[in-house]
């Protein structure tokens, strides 16, 4: 037994693993050291344990196959990959689709966001806030929820906060079950333009090959209006639930907290401006219905996609790959003459090196993408805020988007939702929050459902105009050049997505897709900087009432799920009830 001096106390630290983290797509393992004495999370390691090698087996293929192949990277963002690859190919082939083709892309992708944010928020992430979970982790919070009236009950119909929690119970809660249905008709909306979800059949370089008629648009529009009605109940319900957590558990803003370092590549091109060229990417990027941007320490440092492209670096450190210092440099300068780093995706060569896992050395198949900050010379681990948080943060701050019913003000985003079958017109405003934390990432997602629906409303009305005017063409022909250097910038539901391509002799010489997960789930890089999941978990305080023996790690789960993890990559598993790693005596001046 340890002898305690008056200035020392015993600190119990346990090494715990959650593996797999369920209710996400793909599998993720989180290994953490928990200090149960001070109720704090210490070191955290995020691991991914599956490798396929897309960037290896795509070398040498016809570039026109790229969207079909890369779609298969992910089973929930597959359509985002396909779209991103087509944007990338449009740049390489210098082809601009007809306006109806561009609108079709936007209609498909906005439907995907409507689906994805709905199912992820209320059938996956918010199960962490459901009655059953709260009862098992914080019974005192559930008791309080029973006594707390929901402010917006007249809109969403749930009298107390506990009623909202019950509605989220898996497979029994009525809101959970309704959301499963919503996640189906929104995918029907996707399929009207994309053919299939998640690996589309009609999204092509040059445009959309779906047969788009008045019927297609009617079927989309009717479902969209049903979705608006769902949003009108969803936003106030989530606001009530999340605000309650801040109130019931003071300090909850520290769960999943990290510095506001965000990336977002923007999405939904405006056919009136986009020409897909690299030379004009700065201008058409800023005309996107979601504004691209990089945020460092709470400051929006750029909305220029060319500048942003040159800031991207891929680092190794803790992943099972060999460096490419001695491999070929594909692109020394971008098409505008700017120098390109050896660590840029255009120049990366992927050389896998499977090996034993060692948390002090290599422990994951996920590399470490970083933003290079020229001002400080530092490589910053930025996150996507799970997608909506970064998209809305940048868009609100930049103040460029104005669709009438959707307007960025510089500090907020104002949204007006049209009258629907049983509800009047309603207005919502999402304000840039004080923190980048778990609750605000989740809250941004629910607002982004309405945001995506409003983009869809704009585009479906424009698309109807095109069809009525007889402009029914949605695809333009192109030729594959012998040589090209190109990039596609897009957003997957859960954040940034880029595809960098080099074509030589009409074939793919290098193809580097970077989805949101490498940004968020990245391992410690060569400079020792942890990835965002690791960073957000470390120093997360523990509010859970269960002790070390039946610890569920709910606060950590909420922190990780707020990023909307999507890892069709790694899985691994828990080893028991938590092995006591060390019992250390730390001097403390307080007790």
């Amino acid at each position, binding site marked *: 037994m340890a002898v305690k001096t008056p200035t020392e106390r015993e600190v119990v630290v346990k090494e715990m693993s959650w593996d797999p983290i*369920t209710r996400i*797509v793909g599998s993720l393992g989180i290994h953490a050291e928990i200090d149960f004495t001070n109720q704090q999370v210490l070191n955290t390691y995020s691991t991914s344990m*599956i*490798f396929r090698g897309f960037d290896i087996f795509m070398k040498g293929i016809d570039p*026109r196959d790229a969207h079909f192949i890369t779609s*298969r990277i992910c089973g929930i963002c597959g359509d985002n990959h396909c779209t991103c690859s087509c944007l990338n190919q449009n740049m390489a082939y210098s082809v601009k689709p007809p306006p109806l083709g561009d609108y079709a892309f936007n209609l498909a992708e906005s439907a995907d966001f409507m689906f994805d944010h709905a199912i992820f928020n209320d059938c996956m992430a918010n199960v962490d806030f459901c009655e059953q979970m709260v009862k098992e982790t914080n019974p005192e919070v559930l008791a309080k929820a029973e006594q707390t009236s929901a402010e917006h009950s007249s809109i969403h119909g749930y009298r107390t906060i506990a009623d909202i929690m019950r509605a989220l119970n898996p497979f029994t809660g009525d809101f959970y079950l309704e959301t499963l249905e919503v996640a189906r008709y929104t995918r029907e909306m996707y399929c009207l333009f994309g053919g299939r979800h998640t690996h589309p059949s009609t999204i092509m370089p040059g445009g959309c090959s779906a047969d788009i008629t008045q019927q297609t648009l009617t079927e989309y529009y009717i479902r969209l209006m049903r979705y608006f009605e769902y949003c009108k109940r969803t936003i106030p319900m989530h606001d009530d639930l999340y605000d309650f957590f801040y109130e019931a558990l003071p300090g909850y803003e520290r769960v999943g907290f990290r510095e506001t370092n965000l990336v977002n590549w923007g999405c939904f091109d405006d056919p009136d401006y986009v020409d897909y060229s690299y030379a004009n990417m700065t201008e058409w990027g800023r005309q996107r219905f979601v504004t691209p941007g990089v945020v460092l320490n709470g400051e929006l440092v750029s909305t220029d996609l060319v500048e942003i492209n040159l800031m991207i670096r891929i680092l190794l450190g803790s992943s099972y790959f060999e460096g490419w210092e001695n491999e070929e440099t594909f692109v020394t300068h971008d098409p505008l003459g700017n120098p390109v780093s050896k660590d840029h995706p255009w120049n990366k060569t992927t050389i896998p090196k499977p090996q034993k896992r060692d948390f002090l050395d290599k422990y994951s198949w996920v590399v470490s993408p970083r933003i290079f900050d020229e001002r400080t010379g530092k490589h910053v681990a930025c996150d996507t805020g799970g997608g909506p948080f970064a998209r809305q943060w940048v868009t609100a701050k930049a103040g460029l988007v104005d669709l009438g019913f959707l307007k960025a003000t510089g500090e907020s985003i104002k949204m007006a939702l049209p009258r629907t079958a049983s509800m009047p017109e309603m207005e919502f405003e999402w304000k840039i929050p004080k923190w980048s934390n778990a609750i605000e990432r989740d809250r941004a997602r629910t607002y982004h459902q309405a945001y995506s629906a409003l983009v869809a409303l704009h585009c479906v009305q424009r698309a109807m105009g095109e069809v009525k005017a007889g402009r029914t063409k949605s695809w333009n022909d192109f030729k594959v050049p012998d040589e090209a250097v190109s990039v596609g910038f897009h957003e997957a539901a859960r954040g940034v997505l880029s595809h960098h391509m080099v074509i030589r002799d009409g074939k793919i010489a290098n193809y580097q897709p970077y989805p949101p997960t490498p940004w968020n789930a990245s391992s410690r890089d060569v400079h020792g900087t942890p990835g965002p999941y690791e960073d957000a978990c470390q120093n997360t305080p523990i509010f859970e009432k269960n002790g070390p023996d039946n610890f569920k790690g709910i606060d950590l*789960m909420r922190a990780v799920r707020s990023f909307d993890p999507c890892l069709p990559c790694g899985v691994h598993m828990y080893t028991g009830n938590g092995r006591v790693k060390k019992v250390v005596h730390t001097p403390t001046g307080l007790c």
Partner: protein
Amino acid sequence: MALTDIEFAPNQKETEAVTAHVIWMTSGQGCDGDSVAMTSATNPSLEDIIHGIIPGMPRVVIHTPVLAYENGAEFFQAWYDAEEGKLDPFVLIVEGSIPNEKLSGEGHWAAIGQDPVSGQPITTNEWVDRLAPKAAAVVAAGTCATYGGIPAMKNNPTGAMGLPDYLGWDFKSAAGLPIVCVPGCPTQPDNLTETLLYLVLQLGGMTAPIELDDALRPKWLFERSVHEGCNRAAYYEHGDFAKVYGDDHRCLVKLGCEGPVVKCNVPYRGWVNGIGGCPNVGGICIGCTMPGFPDKYMPFMDAAAKSLFSAYPAQFTYGPIYKKLRNWEIKRNGDKEPAWRHRKNKLTTGYQPRHYAK
């Protein structure tokens, strides 16, 4: 007999007392697209299966990481229980390709969990070895798991393959069933849930054993080609082919559609709740359900010589004649109403109250 004692299925009480577990393993080299597809299925939906929609069907408990309430150890307990024979019967669903771990040295290409002694990850292959022989039925979901698919394409570094390549094409489950392959990249959602429902009914003794073809696919789902179920096939018969993608709704064979030589029911089942699909809505078929996918169909956007072989005769001989005759027939006959529909004073329908008209 009181009406409440009526059984809606033979031995309903006994079959409903059976609990069938489903262990859904997504740790192959895949994308979870088949799990995501499962959440969009409508006939049956996931809830339909869990809530036991058909009288007499065994109770179903699905252990899927995509929607599980539990995390980590609590979630994984079912895998250990299945291995120890505590979950009987269980269906093992495998998603993703199986890599060749003989090529990964001391590391791994795909793993899940860690060995309690060494602390090293347990490969997906080892899990398959541990669970497949205990399973009442083994399902390979999606083209990666069935035949290798995209991770197994030419030049891949991991030696990926399908589950039958790994376990053997003559593998038999604990209940004596071959591996059931539901290909598709991803699987058409209802194809997967319907196959699962069928297997559950079979485990409850409610139906005949599932019939599979030579590639281990459920026969009723994959007996027709895409072309045989396609709403654009008549254009092929007319030799009338689309020249551009998009608003040209004719047959897509000359734009790269592989439909005539691919087995799949998507054109008549649609994608989600009947909406969407491939050539039926304008997308070329790239053969994603096939053992030869993707290499044998690339480059996807070029027309396949074998399809053109039959397209040209149609285009240059009978096709245009059929089309002309049919259009003429529509215009001359079908589009015209019979002459007796008018508002004149006299009835000319041929009506005779006492005997048949002559």
